[in-house]
């Protein structure tokens, strides 16, 4: 077990290094404008001085080596354009908490609504509630988030009698962003839990349990739900970590100072040090999420063993 963990972590680290190296090299291919906020009006001398100072005239391997050396010291470099001369870590430290707070709230809401919804839909399969739920799921999937978020904001603020923009200190202002963010995930959890439960309820052991005379409700929750929840649980750590990334739509609409549009912004602004920092964060989230998901699944379901799963995720 521990051996497996060590191996798994080692592999994840290697993956991270490769991803970072690829992105690092890709970024060096982009035009050098990216390093200078005022490139348009700079003289060639200024540009050369700047490039030398940043060590960008060194050969690529030297740069990569330096990048990792700094990284090991926890130094992600300083932003050049997004916020000139401010350390990347400082910028991220400001933004990440906001996104996590919002994301975790939204995750709790989606689990609290989505899981019961899915369970009820499975319990009353093909009945009215199931159909209603399906309609909701289909609509949420089909209408682009960019559109329904905007409608929710315009009408929701009128109904709740709040301003259009977010106010972090007023709980009432949290309702709409959290709700909008949750809708997609509610549909997600509801849909999959229903499906897993329906699949599970066709299995022999369930039939046996029913034949034994166990009540419908007891079978549903003691047997079906517990088994059906395992595959969903695998997704939860990733979803949790993904809250770091934020929601570009929600944060833009409500002026929430989170991570949402940050990657897009810095890519467009050619702020390479920022891009590297964010890619590192994203990749960590992805790698760690998968790992935790696997582990959580094992914890929840003793029948699954990690050693066997390795290499065939």
């Amino acid at each position, binding site marked *: 077990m521990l051996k497996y963990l060590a191996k798994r972590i080692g*592999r994840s680290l290697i*993956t*991270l290094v*490769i*991803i970072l190296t*690829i*992105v690092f090299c*890709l970024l060096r*291919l*982009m035009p050098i404008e990216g390093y200078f906020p005022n490139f348009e009006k700079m003289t060639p001398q200024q540009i050369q001085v700047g490039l030398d100072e940043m060590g960008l005239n060194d050969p690529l391997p030297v740069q990569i080596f330096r990048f990792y050396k700094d990284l090991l010291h926890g130094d992600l470099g300083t932003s050049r354009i997004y916020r000139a001369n401010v350390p990347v870590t400082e910028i991220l430290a400001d933004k990440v908490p906001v996104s996590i707070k919002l994301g975790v709230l939204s995750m709790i809401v989606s689990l609290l609504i989505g899981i019961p919804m899915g369970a009820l839909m499975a319990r009353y399969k093909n009945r009215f509630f199931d159909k209603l739920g399906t309609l909701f799921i*289909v*609509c949420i*999937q*089909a*209408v*682009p*988030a*960019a*559109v329904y978020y*905007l*409608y929710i904001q*315009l009408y929701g603020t009128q109904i709740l009698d709040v301003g259009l923009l977010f106010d972090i200190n007023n709980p009432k202002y949290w309702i709409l962003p959290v709700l909008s963010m949750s809708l*997609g*995930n509610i549909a*997600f959890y509801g849909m*999959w839990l229903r*499906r*897993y439960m329906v*699949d599970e309820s*066709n299995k022999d052991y369930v039939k046996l349990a029913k034949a034994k005379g166990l009540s419908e409700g007891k079978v549903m929750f003691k047997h079906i739900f517990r088994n059906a929840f395992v*595959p969903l649980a695998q*997704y939860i750590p990733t979803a949790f970590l*993904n809250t770091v*990334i934020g929601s*570009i*739509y929600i944060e833009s609409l409500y002026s929430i100072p989170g991570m949402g*549009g940050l*990657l*897009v912004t810095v*890519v*467009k602004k050619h702020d390479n040090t920022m891009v590297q920092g964010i*890619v590192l964060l*994203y*990749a960590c*989230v*992805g*790698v760690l999420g*998968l790992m935790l998901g696997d582990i959580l699944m094992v914890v929840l379901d003793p029948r699954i063993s990690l050693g066997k799963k390795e*290499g*065939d995720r």
Partner: protein
Amino acid sequence: MMKQFSYRHTKEADLMKSMEETLDKQVNMSDEEKFSFAEFNEKEVERSGYSNYSYWRSTLQAFLKNRVAVALLVMLVLLLLFTFIQPYLPNQYDPNLIINDENGMQYRNVPPGDQFILGTNSIGQDLWARIWSGTRTSLFIGLSVAIAEALIGITVGVLWGYVRKLDFILTEIYNIIDNIPNTIILILISYILKPSVKTLIFAMCLTGWIQMARFIRNQILIIRDRDYNVASRCLGTPTSKIMVKNLLPYLVSVIMLRMALTIPAAIGNEVFITYIGLGLPVDTPSLGNLINEGRALITSAALRYQLVYPTIILSFVTISFYIIGNAFSDAADPKNHV
């Protein structure tokens, strides 16, 4: 966007599970088919011992039972046909034509009515023509991505599953690509290359194929060492023939499902990329472009039609593909063949 990707992935994991179960049940039938290729002359005798169950016919029958899916399929096909016919109908405007009135001024923001079925936009272009042209572009992107992913994915996947030497390398590549969030790749590629239909398709295919390949590879690992394949190998059947004849047929329904789900995902991605400002130029109408232009006008009730109509089409296409894809995967499950 993350949402759509995860839907797709979970769907596949789920499907994989059911495929494995399915395969166990299908073995008998499959053996029968395969052995018939080995030129046994007592075919008549063999056949009499089985019912005339056909997997594909049953799948079709099961699918046809799902009325909603069939209705949507018919409508989707009609819609697809109409996007191609529309430009050739009489009295159609060019989607990029700016229409001027008698005084030479543009028909700006004309609401839907007699002259313009769905109204005009703020520089006097016909929304009806733009929506159909946009649907064409978006469907084209969706289909291209689906087909490209399928082609590359299947080829690599079959090799990956069958050629053991490739396994290590491809698994590592998979681990890397799978761990880079798709958002980053989409943004970087759309940014580095100039915005165009080709770029978008390229960016979306760049990582999508590996999922498909992984999928195929896992299926092949499951089927590869089944008895009939071992038998085929022993009889000296060339690898290529085993791949094409013995393995691929099992994967068709999986592949179809994946393609059906890829199309709406690709269209959704196009909307996202346009939203962040890296989308297609305006003279190439697409659903993403139209929705994005429409969003800016949402605050004026009188102009909202410019947002609503493209959204309806997009939603319809998305719903249709999801429901048809799901119905098809259900139908492909032999448990439902009674």
